[in-house]
Structure formats: C-alpha cells, structure tokens
C-alpha cells in the first residue's frame, strides 16, 4: 500500500529508521523530520543504508529541521529531496496513509 512513513529519531539513537527501512513496502515514501534528519547526512555509518534504500523508496527530509540543527543542505545525500512544511502536507495527502515511527 502507498504509505508515507515519518521518522523523527536519529539512527544513532534507536532502531526506528532501520526498522522502517526493513519493513516498509516498495511504493512507500519516507520523510525524515526532527532528529530523524541526521539519517540522510553524507559520510556517516548510516549513509550506505540510505543510499541503498533510495533504490527502492522515495525519501524526503524537512528543511527547517536541518537548519535548526545547523546541518548543511549540501551534506544531504543525493536523491533525498529537501522539503518544507507545505510539501510535508502534500506528502501526507498524496499518500493513502501516514505511519509515524515514534
């Protein structure tokens, strides 16, 4: 089913990001918000997981949460789309359901 998953935790804090990537189905999209935005940074231990998952899922990251944490936009892994709150709203309405990984 076409589902939007939101992840709000760092992959170095707990396993929600990796659990989500393992469990979500092919036509899912994933939006990283709050502390979850660190997941899509280049050159981390988690980067390769994201790069591989990008072959299967569309991924998005919330720009205001990157900026709030001082994370440079040019350090976001290529293929991950940087979005604002308005696109966040669009993503929730374009998908049939929303799963917030907490």
């Amino acid at each position, binding site marked *: 089913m076409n589902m939007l998953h939101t992840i*709000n935790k760092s992959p170095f804090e707990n396993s929600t990001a990796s659990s989500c990537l393992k469990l979500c189905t092919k036509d899912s999209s994933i939006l990283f*918000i*709050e*502390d979850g935005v660190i997941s899509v940074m280049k050159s981390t231990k988690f980067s390769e997981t994201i790069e591989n998952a990008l072959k299967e899922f569309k991924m998005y990251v919330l720009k*205001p*949460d990157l900026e709030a944490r001082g994370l440079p936009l040019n350090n976001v892994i290529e293929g991950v789309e940087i979005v*604002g*709150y*308005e696109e*966040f*709203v*669009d993503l*929730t*309405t374009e998908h049939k*359901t*929303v799963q*917030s990984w*907490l």
Partner: protein
Amino acid sequence: MKLGILINEGPYQHQASDTALQYVKAALKKGHEIYRVFFYNDGVNNATRLATPPQDDRNITKEWSSLAKDHGIDLVVCVAAAQRRGILDKGEAERNGKDSDNIEDGFRISGLGQLVEAGIQADRLITFGD
C-alpha cells in the same frame, strides 16, 4: 482534505507540538480542513493557560488557542490523561473538588472516543510524538 492530528507530547519537552503546529499552519494555508487536534498522554500539557514562558520564547499554548479561534479548530484534550496531570476545565474542577480550572480558551476536555471519531471522519490522521 480533512486532516486529524494526534499530539502525544507536552510543549518545550519535545518537538512534537511545535512540528504539529507548523504542519497545521501549512495545511490551513493550503486550504485543508483540520477536523480535530487530539491531545493525548503528556500532550495534554499543551492546554494549560497557567504556563508563562519567557516573553522572548514562543507560547505554544497561546499559538494553538489563537489558531483554533481564527480557524474554528476543535482542540480536544483526553479526560483521563488530563486528570492525571492536573489539566481541568470548570466542570472537571467542580466535580473533583478542586479550587480552580486551568484550561486555555479553545481547548475542551473529552474522551478517547473523539480520537476514534477523528480517525474515522478525517481523510488522514497524523501522529506527532516522541
């Protein structure tokens, strides 16, 4: 589209309520209807009008309240979660023999059925929590 919002965390403790607030503002700007915002667990702490954050800080409770006033949004606080945390409206304060209520304008106290109903009536239910 009709959107339902569930908030499980209190203000200033976690980003959930801030994120939900920004999300709701963006959704209203895009012309969507907010069917209901349901405050559950520690999320009920968003509803106290006694909170007085520093003047140069955002007042999350007031922001919810004025958003509700301007756009007619139904802000519902879970009664069981509210009682445990000392969030009371006039009726609940009287019923429990308390000397005062503390709920902010625009919020109302009701039961979990309101969350279930929001899940049924709204096109999407989006959860913000920890």
